């Protein structure tokens, strides 16, 4: 007979943090190093890249040769979880398609992410001043800059100083040199009028001064597998594990938070959670509660934390929690470069992040959509894996054979075997990642009819792209075709048109969802103040991407890290003043 009595250990922590990703990890790091007694709850298992990474395995070390059967992004990808979690459904309404990726593990999605580390720019924080279409953040780039600087120094990032208007420069290690396909891309893009600059990524191209735990990158190109030598940024390796070493941070893994508990005055008192190992209910008491469970999960937690003081959910007197959800836009195109056939072989792995990229380069006043997108480029002589040689019948009829004569596409035998060799490393691809407009009408809410296997009410999503995003995707497709043309490349992917929204990925697909617990100066229109402190609950903070008012065409991670550091320092300062 299972004993369901809630277990309440007698200890009261200074801080309890829900989530061990970029935001939760940074908060744990700052607060533990400041000497606070911190408890961190992580819904997944412990993960240490040094032990658990599948880095440096060849494809034949997986029976499925790296296919994405068990792990969405490939058999060696460092993501436990995926688009669907067993026993943890979510729902949609009004013909919404929303795909929601969750990594249930220490470090969360920072274990497998692309390490593309971009600061939001001054215009991104003050979009209302640009075109009136979105709300301004209550803070500016200048407020966040000191924290971006500290994050750059602490974690290490490569790039180059470019003095671009809305792409603030960081404190950079040298970037990796371009691959051969990237030299062609830069040449073709420049001809097409598209800016290409060195990439910006959180990979240690040189040793990080003062850090004895992390080593310089050895260029295996497998950042997505997470790094055994901590050569790139994962919250697990760079934040949580070092924080544990201070002796001030305790991490409880396989702990699914159920709700934030509150006291008689409406203040947060701790977290109720279920231990997935013994399926018992626990409660942890803390003086301060920090949520870093990821934008939608943190919103879900607040909405599920109802009380008489917080009838609409904790910190939700504005009714804003769950609303203004938005994900990056994304669309792509691919093909190959005939001049890259029959390539000389050498190790071209490089880093597992972008060697080059295109920051947004145009003036929206001349365009039919607001804001912009950056472009990420692919190609190179990468490790073969399941499916990477598929579809040769779509390639080998497009160019003359070794004898100078055109071939009948498809085939078999010695000639076909040779064709695979000829095309290796000739492929090239490009993807846009752009700003979606945050709208009140795109949101997640609690589905009153559905609970997950722990009995926790689940989220229901309502989300539609609008013309602003669709026209941006159209522009992406036109830009990509132009670049491919200027390179002399042959496009082999299907060119997406209006019937597929120009290839605009479904919401959630880019895995940059933000905005569900907005910050703002007005408690009627926001849930958090500019310190990511709940208006309604002074000892409650949110440190993932939920506080974002409006994203830019920069993925969220670097801003999450900077804001979490800023909020954590504010917590320390407020504690000193005995305000919380």
């Amino acid at each position, binding site marked *: 007979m299972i004993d369901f009595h809630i277990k309440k250990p007698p200890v009261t922590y200074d801080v309890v943090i829900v989530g061990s990703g970029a935001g939760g990890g940074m908060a744990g790091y700052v607060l533990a190093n400041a000497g606070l007694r911190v408890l961190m709850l992580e819904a997944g298992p412990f993960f240490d890249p040094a*032990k*658990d*990474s*599948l880095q*440096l395995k060849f494809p*034949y*070390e997986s*029976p*499925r*040769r790296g*296919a994405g*059967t*068990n792990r969405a992004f490939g058999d060696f990808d460092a993501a*436990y979880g995926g688009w669907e979690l067993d026993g943890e459904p979510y729902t949609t309404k009004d013909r919404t398609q929303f795909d929601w990726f969750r990594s249930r593990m220490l470090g969360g999605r920072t274990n497998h992410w692309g390490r593309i580390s971009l600061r939001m720019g001054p215009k991104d924080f003050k979009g209302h001043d640009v075109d009136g279409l979105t709300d301004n953040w209550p803070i500016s780039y200048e407020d966040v800059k000191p924290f971006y600087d500290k994050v750059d120094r602490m974690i290490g990032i490569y790039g180059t100083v470019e003095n671009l208007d809305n792409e603030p420069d960081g404190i950079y290690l040298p970037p990796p*040199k*371009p*691959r*051969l396909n990237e*030299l062609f891309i830069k*040449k073709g893009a420049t001809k097409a009028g598209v800016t290409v600059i060195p990439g910006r990524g959180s990979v240690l191209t040189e*040793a990080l001064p003062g850090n*004895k735990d992390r*080593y*310089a990158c*050895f*260029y*295996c190109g497998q950042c997505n597998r997470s790094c*055994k*030598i901590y*050569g790139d940024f994962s919250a697990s390796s760079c934040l949580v594990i070092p924080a544990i070493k201070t002796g001030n941070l305790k991490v409880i893994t396989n702990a699914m938070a159920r709700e934030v508990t509150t006291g008689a005055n409406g203040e947060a008192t701790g977290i109720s959670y279920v231990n997935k190992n013994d399926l018992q209910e626990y409660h942890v008491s803390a003086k301060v509660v920090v949520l870093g469970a990821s934008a939608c999960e943190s919103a879900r937690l607040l909405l599920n934390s109802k009380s008489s003081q917080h009838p609409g959910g904790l910190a939700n007197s504005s009714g804003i929690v769950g609303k203004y959800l938005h994900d990056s836009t994304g669309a792509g195109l691919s093909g190959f470069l005939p*001049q890259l056939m029959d390539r*000389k*072989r*050498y*190790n*071209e*792995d490089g880093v597992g992040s972008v060697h080059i990229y295109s920051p947004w380069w145009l003036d929206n006043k001349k365009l039919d959509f607001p804001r912009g997108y950056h472009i990420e480029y692919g190609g190179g*002589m*990468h*490790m*073969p894996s*399941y*499916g*990477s*040689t*598929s579809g*040769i*019948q779509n390639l080998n009829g497009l160019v003359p054979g070794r004898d100078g004569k055109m071939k*009948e*596409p*498809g*085939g*078999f*035998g*010695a000639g*076909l*075997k040779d064709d*695979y*060799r000829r095309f*290796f490393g000739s492929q090239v691809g490009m993807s846009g990642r752009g700003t979606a407009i945050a709208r009140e009408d795109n949101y997640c809410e609690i589905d009153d009819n559905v609970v997950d296997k722990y009995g926790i009410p689940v989220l229901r999503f309502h989300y539609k792209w609008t013309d602003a995003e669709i026209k941006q995707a159209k522009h992406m497709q036109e830009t990509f075709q132009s670049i491919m043309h200027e390179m002399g490349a042959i496009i082999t992917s299907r060119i997406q048109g209006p019937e597929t929204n120009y290839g605009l990925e479904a919401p959630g697909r880019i895995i940059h969802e933000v905005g569900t617990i907005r910050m703002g100066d007005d408690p009627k229109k926001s849930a958090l103040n500019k310190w990511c402190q709940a208006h309604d609950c002074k000892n409650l903070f949110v440190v993932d991407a939920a506080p974002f008012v409006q994203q830019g065409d920069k993925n969220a991670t670097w801003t999450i890290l900077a804001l979490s550091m800023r909020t954590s320092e504010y917590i320390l300062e407020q504690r000193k003043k005995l305000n919380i």
Partner: protein
Amino acid sequence: MNRRESLKAIGLTTLSTTLLLKGGDSEAQSVPKKHTPPAVDEAGRQPFEVERDKKLFAEKYFTAHEMATITVLADIIIPRDAKSGSASDAKVPDFIEFIVKDIPDHKTPMRGGLRWLDIQCLTRYEKKFVECSHPQQIEMVTEIAYPKKAKPEMRQGVAFFNRMRDLTATGFFTSKIGIADIGYMGNSPGKWDGVPHDVLKQHGFDNDKI
């Protein structure tokens, strides 16, 4: 920490490329007569992954006849040549046997396609595919290997052969033999210093500011 220390940290010294180019010893042997399920490498794997692989290894889908047909087809698609071994040298049939269990969407198209092929051969040559002579097999494959040229009544065979070709190529070029053949030289810790100078020159990037 510098790069040499970082390699030491994971117990590696600089991997020699000759290690990569040397063909894998075990794969040069013919298909073993007794099938023992391979051990599942558990490090860094979640329990469900380990369990699932064990189940898949224990499952049997293709019959002996189907496997024989797959083997002949795979070696027609990727034969031994001067540079490297055949698909069966690289254990591609074993890979195909596993992958249809791992990705069940392959099961019916493969089974149905193999049978379609046998019926075609029975009709033309009064023998199943594996029993036909090599020239007959080549003649049959030629009917379905060229999507743009195939007769309309061969379309089901074209779809099957496209799939079979893809699975054979994937199985081959992700094997040790195939990786050496295609010349992938990565997965070897070291320093990336950009495109080698002779390659830059070959492609006319010599004078560009890199």
